[in-house]
């Protein structure tokens, strides 16, 4: 198979690139203390929250944007970004789906998330974040009966200030890194989940994020807390319209798992990647970290990353609790001029902690992709174990695939295994499939799907289907 | 020499041996036969001290000492030596080191000093010749890249060097062609003596044509259901284990 054909296989048009034409309430570009005060006021936040934000802002001013990642992009002008954009009519929020702006619902339709149908069919509660505001949260009532809190973070600040105060910033401190500090100062919305002791959340929780307005940055903040013995599976989907300027997305996600708690966090990230010449696309700088505070707690990250012009993202686990478990399963697909520097950190602090990392990278076109991972075994992490597998598949000879795994081992009773391979789709595999009557296109799709199988099987069922569909869209339509 | 009394052994909660009793005296060759899964290998593994086997009842005495209280290496130093069915590959450990370290450990346990190098060399040369092995083999890593037959020869070579008092050979005949079988059997036969006992664990009668046992025991479902002389093995060959199982049932 010719290389160009292979490349074409992965070149695609961005299917989610439309703009929703609704009026929005947008702050002019620029960032200073007044901007932050405006956001805080707009959200009707208590004083402590504003102070927290301002403190983060002061720290951010002293920090430098990190440059160690294998990424190349022009400097970001933080004064050119608008830090707040909410769909109009914030005063009279829809109380049921019927009241939701039909255009919004149409947007979700186009994204393939028919909110009510999908929610009803799959039993998924959806919290949709449109630009900066949480538009609606469904199934709140059913969850309430189980004792699960699932709402926007803004609402949580008002309704459950003690819970927010107790956990916010305890996993990702305000000054953790440049982008986390920025987020702490200006975050506009995001989800809050609290699952009390012993409760297994009765349904999958889900949020869709979408950047719609021009020149806006999106800074959502998600906080999920599972008390002892609690369990939750949370799904997150992201899309953005097609625009020719770059947009910044700097989110923070914090997860806290107490004794025996289990949090499964799945992401399908399909932000606009820019066009094939690298014009436009989302800059995605995300800090995601889970804290396995309790004994035998478990946090599992699964991500399918196909979008964004720039991805800087390392979902991590702090394995503090004895016998706690961290997992990271990732598929990242890059094409065009996309650049992704992604991976994970597993920090083994407690005794008997275990972690598994499975990362699959597929690079094509002129894209560059790096796996960057850290496995750190502390001196007290007796008997800790890690297994890491990161495989890269190259399609075409103008892309790059890189692997930078850091392993810091300070304990003789720990066991680490790391394996990595980089290769292209085997001609013999393709030939074999084709000689069985399968088209080139299907053969590539099959092989790539097979390559990603270990990760897809970690996704909740409906997401797995979506992820495979997304991958097929990515690979479709170019042969012949 | 060895007295196994009402031995019950479990692996992960499943009882494998269910009251096995067996006495072996110096100068005797015993063969334990039985169908797959009867617990044949479990017996020799427990005697050698492999982890993961829980003795829930019964005892094993060796010259009156409680074997279960002895460390793995103590058992070996005292002359209880197991020949593995699947000898483990130990990359990088040269055969010569293993033989020398093992022999010296045994001598130390007997209160003897280390074997002088020339004497050791002479001994090794003689034994590898007996096993029809090439001298280059001494510099190779233990069992690494060995064929099935070479691994089994290596097990017997270790026996010839270490001269155990009770040699336990677990399925030593598996995976051997007829020539290797002859070499291995000759090795085993050369171990036969008045002071020494041999315990053969095997599924097939074939080995027993070469190493004729004094006693044959049939192990079914964790117990010895029948004992006899070499004739019993031939009977098994003719009628299979089903016959025995039926007659017992």
């Amino acid at each position: 198979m010719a290389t160009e054909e292979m490349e074409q296989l992965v070149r695609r048009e961005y299917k989610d690139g439309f703009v929703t034409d609704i009026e929005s309430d947008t702050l002019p570009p620029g960032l200073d203390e007044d901007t932050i005060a405006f956001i805080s006021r707009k959200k009707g936040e208590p004083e402590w929250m504003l102070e927290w934000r301002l403190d983060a802002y002061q720290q951010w001013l002293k920090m430098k944007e990190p440059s160690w990642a294998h990424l190349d992009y022009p400097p970001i002008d933080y004064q050119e970004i608008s830090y707040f954009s909410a769909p109009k009519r914030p005063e009279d929020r829809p109380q049921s789906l019927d009241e939701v702006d039909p255009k919004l619902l149409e947007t979700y339709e186009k994204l393939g998330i028919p909110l009510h149908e999908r929610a009803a069919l799959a039993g998924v509660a959806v919290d949709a974040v449109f630009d900066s505001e949480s538009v609606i949260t469904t199934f709140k009532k059913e969850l309430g009966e189980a004792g699960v809190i699932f709402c926007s973070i803004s609402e949580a600040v008002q309704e459950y200030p003690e819970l927010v105060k107790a956990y916010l910033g305890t996993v990702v401190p305000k000054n953790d890194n440049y982008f986390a500090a920025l987020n702490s100062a200006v975050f506009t919305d995001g989800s809050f989940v609290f699952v009390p002791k012993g409760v297994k959340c009765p349904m999958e929780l889900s949020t869709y994020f979408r950047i719609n307005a021009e020149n806006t940055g999106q800074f959502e903040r998600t906080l999920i807390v599972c008390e002892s013995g609690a369990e939750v599976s949370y799904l997150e989907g992201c899309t953005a319209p097609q625009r020719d300027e770059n947009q910044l997305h700097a989110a923070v996600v914090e997860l806290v798992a107490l004794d025996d708690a289990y949090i499964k966090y799945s992401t399908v990230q399909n932000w606009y990647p820019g066009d094939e010449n690298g014009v436009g696309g989302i800059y995605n700088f995300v800090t995601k970290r889970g804290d396995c505070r309790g004994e035998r707690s478990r946090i599992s990250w699964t991500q399918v990353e196909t979008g964004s012009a720039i991805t800087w993202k390392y979902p991590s686990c702090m394995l503090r609790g004895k016998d706690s478990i961290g997992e990271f399963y990732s598929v990242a697909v890059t094409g065009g001029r996309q650049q992704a520097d992604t991976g994970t950190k597993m920090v083994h602090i407690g005794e008997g902690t275990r972690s598994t990392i499975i990362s699959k990278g597929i690079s094509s076109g002129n894209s560059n992709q790096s796996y960057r991972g850290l496995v750190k075994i502390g001196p007290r992490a007796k008997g800790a174990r890690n297994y890491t597998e990161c495989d890269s598949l190259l399609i075409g000879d103008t892309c790059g695939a890189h692997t930078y795994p850091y392993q810091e081992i300070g304990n003789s009773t720990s066991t680490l295994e790391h394996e990595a391979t980089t290769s292209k789709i085997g001609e013999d595999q393709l030939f074999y499939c084709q000689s069985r009557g399968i088209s080139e296109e299907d053969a590539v799709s099959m092989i790539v799907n097979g390559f990603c199988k270990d990760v897809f099987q970690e996704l909740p069922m409906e997401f797995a289907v979506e992820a495979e569909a997304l991958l097929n869209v990515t690979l479709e339509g170019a042969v012949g | 020499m060895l007295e196994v009394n009402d031995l019950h052994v479990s692996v992960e909660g499943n009882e494998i041996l269910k009251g096995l009793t067996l006495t072996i005296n110096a100068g005797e060759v015993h063969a334990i036969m039985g169908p797959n899964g009867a617990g044949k290998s479990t017996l020799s593994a427990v005697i050698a001290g492999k982890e993961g086997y829980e003795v829930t009842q019964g005892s094993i005495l060796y010259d009156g000492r409680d074997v279960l209280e002895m460390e793995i290496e103590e058992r070996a130093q005292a002359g209880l030596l197991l020949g593995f069915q699947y000898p483990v590959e130990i990359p990088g450990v040269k055969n010569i080191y293993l033989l020398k370290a093992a022999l010296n450990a045994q001598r130390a346990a007997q209160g003897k000093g280390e074997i002088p190098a020339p004497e050791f060399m002479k001994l090794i040369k003689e034994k590898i010749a007996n096993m029809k092995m090439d001298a280059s083999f001494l510099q190779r890593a233990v069992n690494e890249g060995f064929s099935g037959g070479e691994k089994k020869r290596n097990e017997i070579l270790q026996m010839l060097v270490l001269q155990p008092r009770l040699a336990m050979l677990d399925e030593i005949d598996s995976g051997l062609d007829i020539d290797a079988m002859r070499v291995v059997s000759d090795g085993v036969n050369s171990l036969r003596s008045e002071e020494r006992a041999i315990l053969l664990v095997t599924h097939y009668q074939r080995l027993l044509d070469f190493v004729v046992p004094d006693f044959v025991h049939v192990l079914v479902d964790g117990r010895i259901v029948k004992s006899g002389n070499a004739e019993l093995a031939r009977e098994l060959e003719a009628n299979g284990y089903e016959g025995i199982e039926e007659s017992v049932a």
Partner: protein
Amino acid sequence: MSDTLTFLETLKARDAGRGPEPTWIAARRQAGAARFEAMGFPTRRDEEWKYTNVLEIARGNFALANDATFSPAAAAALTLPLDGYRLSFVDGIFAPALSDVQGMPDGVEVVPLSQALEDNHEAVGGTLGRLTGVDFPAFSALNTAFMEEGAVVRLAAGCVVEKPIVLQFLSRVNVDKPTMCHPRILVEAGSRSEATIVEHHTGDAEATNFTNIATEMFLGRGAILTHYKLQEAPLGDFHIASIHVEQERDSRYVSHNMDLGGALVRNDLISELNGKGAEATFNGLFFGQGRQHVDNHTKVNHNAPLTFSNENYKGILDDRAHGVFNGRVYVKRDSQQIEGFQSNQNLLLSDRARVDTKPELEIYADDVKCTHGTTTGQLDEDAVFALRTRGLDEQSARGLLTLAFAGEVLEAVTLDAISERVELAVAGKLPERFNLAGLVETAAALND
């Protein structure tokens, strides 16, 4: 005075007394000094030095040796029993009395750098500093600034040298002040030539010097070069080595890099595979005890299609020793049909030992087969059991398996004098609880 300046002052003082010499070499030294001054010593903020702190070197106050006095008996005891050609250096100064290059076949030249410069400086000028000067990492720049002694090995096209060429570096006890030296090795292997170079660092057990060696090796078309670097420097020595190899078409470079000594050790080994069919093999072993710090950074740059690399490094760390491995396989755009394999395995014998490992792949071509694997952990318990069933006590069994772990790297070593030396050293260096020196010694004797 800053750390950098201390070194530059020493340099200035030395060069003040220098006689006339070709301008190019002075210019190169100056470029090195300027570069070093601009860069300064690396710090842990530097990604390449993330796990290695060189403050002790930077703060050190080292003199330059004036002579090559070394007890012949002591030197003889340290010298590897190899039948070959030998150049010896004491604290960087050439020691003719300890050297022997008699009976060299035609087509091969093995001379001290100072002599090569004197004999025909133009012949050296073309290549000297070409590789280490490329991007001048700090220690290479420092070496360049001081460059005046070392070894030059030249092989004519088609020349095959059967006996090994030994470059011996001895570090001695200096009562007043520890010394530093910056030896430079230049190897030019003509097309289809073949040789084995043994670089051996050793010395007085109590010495506390600083060696900053830089090596440049050029392999012509089809040349085959085997490079042993046996580093058993005194435990108080600082040892920094920058080895840069350039390979043309169908050439083969094999590195056996063994680190047993030194308080702080850093090796940077880089091979540029510039011609089709070029092949690099990196074989490494490091063993740290006490508070030893051993850092190995390797890079293979696949700059041409159909090039191959194979790397296997093993580390054993005991006590509070700290091991670092960073291996990078780089495949340039359009370098197709590449195979690159990399493996790093580490064994931690003590709870306070640590290892930081980072095997990297950086790939810009699609028709490649690259893999890397690392493992860190303990010994195989099935093997421990198997040895115990042969009567070995648990400690001896673990000791033997640790030795075996190292032995896998030694299997590739074809010079018995080296593999036996390393094996003995490892056996003897094993923790008291399973010292196996006796066992290996008798076994080695049996081989004779």
